[in-house]
């Protein structure tokens, strides 16, 4: 496939690794923020190709994984309403809440449908006028513009049985929160390629300037990831802290203006709770007041009793890069993809799932 195969050339990969090996005097922690990068790194065996002095940390870039336990519990409460159809991206279904999961509720008769695109949620709403469709809107800046676009379509078509539960989050504030906590030393960020399609490289300038941490926006093929690591090492060696774009075939400094305008029209920035990171100021997106008729939280007011995470689950620490999955006492012993205890084992791009499958 064009734009894929040529970026998987094994011989070139080995040559980039040779270039990386020349920085053997640097002992660095590089964080790949995005869960899709984590998957590529594990699936393509890139970790094993890298010299020991380059340590890769997985970051908080898996939307399902960072959704708070309270939000998970609320979606489960919403699903219990027999007049409600839940439309959701697949990975959310198996995340264990405090007492149940969407999957378990489905077993009890709840109508939970897995969709690939928000336009399918609209179709479900059109086909079921007597019922109410709640779309679980999770995701980062890659996904929020399309949710916004779909909501504008709903408004235009005057569909009156469609609601969204917005748990959207923003990536740069989470990166800043990690740096502020000083819990782990991060010497460079591989920034998420498709989030950056929307927000552009300029959005990370404050990370490079205020925190002196180099950033490289990388694509998702093996050669892209290796080259991004090489570019980060080069910056560190040359004592530069800049935002560079390896993935410049799709990412521009100013991002995608149309996508940004869609977000601005429908959403406003809010403080939001992340699993593992706590409440981060201005790191989420909620519906603007003029769209409150579509807000599932306002319409249904899902009540949750005290939400609790499994105290033995180390997802929070894994998401902050503080622990590796292998340091969690549940990992592999009782927490497996078949019977997950935390979202990092559920999501196909969760760090625990990646370790389990390819680690």
């Amino acid at each position, binding site marked *: 496939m064009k734009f894929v195969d040529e970026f998987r050339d094994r011989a070139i990969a080995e040559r980039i690794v040779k270039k990386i090996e020349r920085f053997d005097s640097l002992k660095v922690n590089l964080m790949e923020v995005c869960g899709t990068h984590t998957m590529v790194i594990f699936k393509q065996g890139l970790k094993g190709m890298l010299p020991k002095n380059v340590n890769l940390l997985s970051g908080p870039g898996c939307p399902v994984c960072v959704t708070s336990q309270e939000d998970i519990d609320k979606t489960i409460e919403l699903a219990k309403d027999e007049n409600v159809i839940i439309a959701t991206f697949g990975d959310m279904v198996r995340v264990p809440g405090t007492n149940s999961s969407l999957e378990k509720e489905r077993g009890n008769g709840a109508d939970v449908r897995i969709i690939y695109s*928000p336009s*399918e949620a609209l179709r479900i709403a059109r086909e079921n006028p007597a019922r109410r469709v709640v779309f679980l809107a999770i995701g980062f800046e890659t996904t929020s513009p399309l949710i916004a676009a779909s909501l504008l379509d709903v408004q235009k078509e005057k569909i009156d049985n469609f609601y969204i539960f917005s748990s959207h989050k923003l990536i740069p504030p989470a990166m800043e929160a990690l740096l502020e906590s000083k819990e782990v030393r991060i010497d460079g960020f591989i920034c998420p390629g498709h989030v950056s399609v929307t927000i552009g490289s300029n959005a990370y300038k404050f990370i490079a300037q205020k925190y002196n941490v180099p950033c490289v926006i990388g694509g998702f093929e093996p050669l892209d990831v290796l080259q991004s690591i090489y570019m980060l090492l080069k910056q560190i060696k040359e004592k530069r802290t800049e935002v560079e774009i390896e993935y410049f075939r799709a990412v521009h400094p100013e991002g995608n203006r149309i996508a940004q305008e869609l977000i601005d029209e429908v959403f406003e920035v809010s403080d939001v709770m992340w699993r593992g990171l706590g409440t981060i100021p201005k790191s989420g997106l909620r519906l603007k007041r003029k769209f409150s008729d579509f807000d599932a939280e306002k319409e249904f007011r899902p009540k949750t009793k005290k939400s609790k995470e499994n105290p033995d689950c180390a997802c929070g620490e894994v998401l902050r890069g503080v622990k590796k999955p292998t340091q969690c006492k549940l990992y592999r012993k009782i927490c497996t993809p078949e019977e997950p205890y935390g979202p990092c084992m559920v999501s196909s791009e969760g760090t625990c799932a990646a370790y389990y499958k390819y680690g």
Partner: protein
Amino acid sequence: MCLAIPAKILKIEDNLALVDMAGVKRQADIRMVSNARVGEYVLIHAGFAIEKIGEKEAEETLQLLREII
């Protein structure tokens, strides 16, 4: 979840395009990609084209990757 796959635009009608995604034909919403043309490549995420892929830029990247220093 931020997965986006390259696809070739085969046909355009208003905001909708028929695209070829690794041999599979699908409909995609292209409102976020201004001036998209038939024959061009876009990145598809959850049924929407989120950006065009620059052919020239891809070629340049490959040249950088092949570079021996």
